[in-house]
């Protein structure tokens, strides 16, 4: 039950796969239902780089043999970890990925490189996990849209210049577009495509 206890083994999954995934899913569901709110996942899983604890738990909860994952180069250990725990294939083709893990760094594939779904089936889009430095202390953003009463202010830190323009462009394609889960450590924040993200300082 208590995943934060000492004695972590490198590369283990949920202590209780059934209930661990259930609790994690509820946090993800809450995060995407109320964009901008921060949810702390229960367990502290040490997965191989580049997977943070939050990204690992999210993927253990949602991925399986039906969901190709894109991790980028140099993630062989993480790929092995995911194959072992979730059975998910790790793919090199950005457009084929149902899930992707970014670090929010320049030089990574832009958000519009991932599958945005199609007009008849916008649900076929990818979900992109963005591992930030922190979910606060960064550039001030104002969020609006479903799940937000009025507006919500957030300030995730550590993403590259231009990232929020990509996020805004992603929203402009609504109902197409990818959905984002920002992760720092084991904290997560949802930014679905339905959320309008504006830079608080520059625009207002």
């Amino acid at each position, binding site marked *: 039950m208590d995943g934060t206890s000492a004695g972590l083994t490198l590369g283990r999954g949920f202590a209780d*796969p*059934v*209930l661990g*995934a*259930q*609790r994690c*899913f*509820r946090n*993800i*569901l*809450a995060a*995407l*239902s*109320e964009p901008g709110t921060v949810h702390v996942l229960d367990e502290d899983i040490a997965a191989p780089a580049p997977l943070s604890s939050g990204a690992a738990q999210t993927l253990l*909860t*949602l*991925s*399986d043999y*039906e*969901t190709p994952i894109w991790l980028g180069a140099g993630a062989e250990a993480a790929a092995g970890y995911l194959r072992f725990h979730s059975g998910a294939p790790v793919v090199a083709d950005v457009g084929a990925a*149902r899930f992707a893990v970014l670090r929010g760094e320049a030089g990574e594939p832009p958000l519009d490189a991932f599958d945005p779904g199609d*007009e*008849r*089936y*916008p*649900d076929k*889009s990818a*979900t992109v996990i963005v591992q930030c430095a922190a979910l606060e202390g960064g550039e001030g953003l104002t969020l609006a*849209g*479903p*799940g*937000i*009463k009025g507006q919500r202010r957030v300030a995730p830190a550590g993403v590259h210049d231009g990232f929020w323009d990509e996020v805004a462009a992603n929203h402009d394609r*609504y*109902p197409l577009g990818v*959905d984002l889960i920002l992760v720092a450590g084991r904290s997560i924040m949802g930014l*679905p*495509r*339905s959320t309008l993200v504006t830079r608080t300082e520059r625009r207002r």
Partner: protein
Amino acid sequence: MQKSVGPPKRDEAYNFAYLDEQTKRMVRRALLKAVAVPGYQVPFGSREMPLARGWGTGGIQVTASVIGPDDTLKVIDQGADDTTNAVSIRRFFARVAGVATTEATGEASIIQTRHRIPEAPLRAGQILVYQVPQPEPLRKLEPKEAETRKMHAWGDYGLMHVRLYEDIARFGRVATTYSYPVLVNGRYVMSPSPIPKFDNPKLGMCAALQLFGAGREKRIYAIPPWTEVKSLDFDDHPFEVQTWDEPCALCGAADSYLDEVITDDKGSRMFVCSDSHYCEERRAAGHVGRLLGSETGQKLTGGAKE
């Protein structure tokens, strides 16, 4: 008088909440996409369930994919906790998930419903799961899925507006009383399931998360909290809800949806709250309706409950 039942022992012969983990993951992924595109119907690999199609298998799969041992579940059908299918579904989850159940709307973390939204406002953190027989609001206008999917893709809802306007031309009003279509987040026309249009105003800007499961039709959709939901109408014929000439005969509520109960074969009838818990709470707080003391009133409030 209010029944809350602590966690019973789970039937270990089945996986937690009955569904296998792969199925739960598939449903969970569909739920997240549904939340990300409010009102859009996500196809999902609906499983065959030990309950009949049309009897809540969509809602059950959604609840089973969301529920955990710490949840408290309320199940209602027609607004009432003691209707047979609500009892049956509550028993199912008590058995396969070992969760606590309740009739108190405020105490529930998950409420599975058929045909009603509780009268008491829902709070943040609650999840309302709807059982949906026909998720496609355009189905009665266009039987082919290939066509209706295109209409949603293009946001082409002209057919629906024409249908509603024909009602107005003919009857002077929109003659739809339940499953009244809504526009969600300004983009998708959605069926709210066969709730009475009386409940439509509760769909929008709701603090709770609303999830919709159609098992036979294999669709999931959602309304996140604080989402704009508009019942379709016209400037000169604004949307309006049902009203009754009399309050609830048991608790005197004048703001609730009422069921009609025929009390004899001479045309006598009484109107009582469809939300059984709401009515009970009001009576417990001392509200007395016109016929609470009558034989039928006693039967409805005491005799039928055990």
